[in-house]
């Protein structure tokens, strides 16, 4: 079959690879209908996530049709249209049972690598390095879905592929940030990053009853989407100073919940951003936490800061003093999709969550290089290139 493979820094290629096979009786095989590129892929492309191997098939946000079913699968049959959470989780360990699916104990066949990096191993992920299991991704004609009864969800007929595909990753990620960040009715919530993840975090906060939600970015087209499709306010950090603006908006308090949806390659809009860039290039830190720092500074005393952006290792000049002296709650997570996807599909069905506008470019697999190029440089209004095999 045809697939989009990572071949090195800034390089992808479309190659012919083996078809996936059922490896155990809890798997299904999907014929991929749509597979979206995610901001996380950009960290792979830019070489900031170790343990990628040339030839790895990319992609972890997808919808497809079941074409083969393992003997122990009970929820799915051939022909079902399903969306699949990007993290691979067993559904039966203590973490899964408590709704923390991305922390699954049994989803990652290579636990020694993340244990060496982080002390413990999270679950596995499609197409996302050998530290997260070395599974093939979904930018391909077919994909194997392990633990299919846990990770795959039938999509209601009246939800389009273009909307439902984002129930795989961007939408549950946003929901994870707002939910675990502790958004309460009446809160003011600030979100850094107007990519798919930031937009969906803002939408989640609105649906949870936040009184004001504001998204921070510098790209006019993305900020425009925030206003039109998400219903949140915006701050363009290229023309406004973020912290004073947020203070003014909140009567001098600062937002109750600050969600960071930028990740390890934050744009250097502040002096510390230049410092971060140089240190990251010299591999003296593995991420640029510019937006995380700003979120911590902006947050109200006793508020909550939640990191959705992906980081791989260590960062520098972390404002521990602000965190401690302001009494902040600080946490982060890879998304716990399986916990939220059924509810999110219902909200998609009711039109409470709209996401198809994120699929700005629907392309064949053959246009992988072009798709990633415009996504990386945010050209041509690209928010997510979505591949249709």
């Amino acid at each position: 079959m045809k697939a989009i493979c990572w071949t090195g820094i800034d390089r992808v290629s479309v190659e012919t690879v083996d078809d996936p096979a059922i490896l155990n009786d809890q798997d299904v095989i999907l014929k991929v209908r749509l597979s979206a590129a995610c901001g996380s892929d950009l960290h792979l492309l830019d070489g900031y996530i170790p343990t990628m191997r040339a030839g790895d098939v990319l992609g972890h946000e997808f919808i497809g049709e079941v074409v083969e079913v393992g003997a122990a699968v009970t929820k799915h049959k051939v022909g079902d249209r399903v969306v699949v959470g990007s993290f691979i989780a067993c559904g039966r360990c203590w973490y899964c049972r408590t709704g923390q699916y991305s922390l699954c104990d049994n989803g990652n066949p290579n636990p020694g690598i993340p244990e060496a990096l982080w002390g413990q191993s999270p679950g596995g992920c499609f197409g996302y390095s050998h530290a997260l299991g070395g599974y093939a991704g979904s930018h391909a004609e077919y994909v194997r879905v392990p633990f299919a009864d846990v990770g795959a969800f039938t999509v209601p007929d009246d939800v389009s592929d273009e909307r439902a595909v984002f129930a795989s990753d961007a939408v549950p990620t946003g929901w994870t940030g707002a939910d675990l960040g502790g958004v309460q009715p009446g809160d003011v919530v600030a979100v850094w990053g107007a990519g798919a993840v930031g937009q969906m975090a803002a939408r989640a906060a609105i649906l949870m009853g936040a009184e004001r939600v504001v998204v921070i970015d510098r790209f006019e087209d993305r900020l425009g989407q925030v206003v039109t499709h998400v219903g949140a306010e915006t701050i363009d950090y290229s023309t406004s100073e973020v912290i004073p603006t947020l203070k003014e908006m909140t009567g001098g308090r600062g937002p109750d919940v600050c969600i960071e949806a930028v990740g390890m390659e934050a744009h250097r809009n502040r002096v510390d951003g230049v410092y971060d860039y140089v240190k990251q290039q010299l591999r003296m830190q593995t991420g640029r936490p510019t937006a995380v720092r700003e979120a911590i500074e902006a947050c109200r005393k006793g508020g909550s800061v939640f990191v959705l952006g992906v980081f791989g290792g260590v960062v520098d000049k972390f404002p521990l003093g602000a965190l401690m002296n302001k009494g902040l709650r600080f946490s982060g997570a890879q998304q716990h999709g399986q916990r939220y996807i059924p509810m999110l599909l219902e909200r998609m069905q009711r039109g409470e969550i709209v996401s198809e506008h994120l699929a700005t470019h629907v392309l064949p697999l053959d246009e992988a290089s072009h798709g990633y190029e415009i996504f990386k440089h945010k050209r041509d209004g690209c928010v997510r290139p979505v591949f249709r095999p």
Partner: protein
Amino acid sequence: MATKRTMGMSVAAAGAAAVVAVRVARRGRPGTGHGPGAGRDPDGWKAVTVLADAEALRPGGRYPEPLAALADRLEIALRPAGRDRGTEVHARFRPGEHPDPEALRVALRDTKSLVETGIVQRADPVPHGVRKPTPFGIGQDAIESRSKGMGLL
């Protein structure tokens, strides 16, 4: 620029690989293991917590195959994990047995997975594009193939 960045990546990835390798080497060196399990725990114990009661862990008095295969050479202790977390399985090689910490880690992890899910998950054989046999890639494959026996368990 491209070359520099490629090198940067290799350094970062090699760094990660080195961390893994150093930890393995440190434990594998003869004489550094203090106890019969030759692990980091001074007495050589390693442990996993399984979301199951002790009975389900040892149906009919026999452990699941990954652990049963080593059981003759091991001391195994089961303990309630507290709260709603199931059962802790602690194991180490008996005094006088040649300790194989990698095998013990694999056995504990696979036992846990089998009891909890009925299977041991795997990604291989995985569809992939061209993989040139570079030294870096070969090193990474070697680490990956041993990853379940490595780590901090």
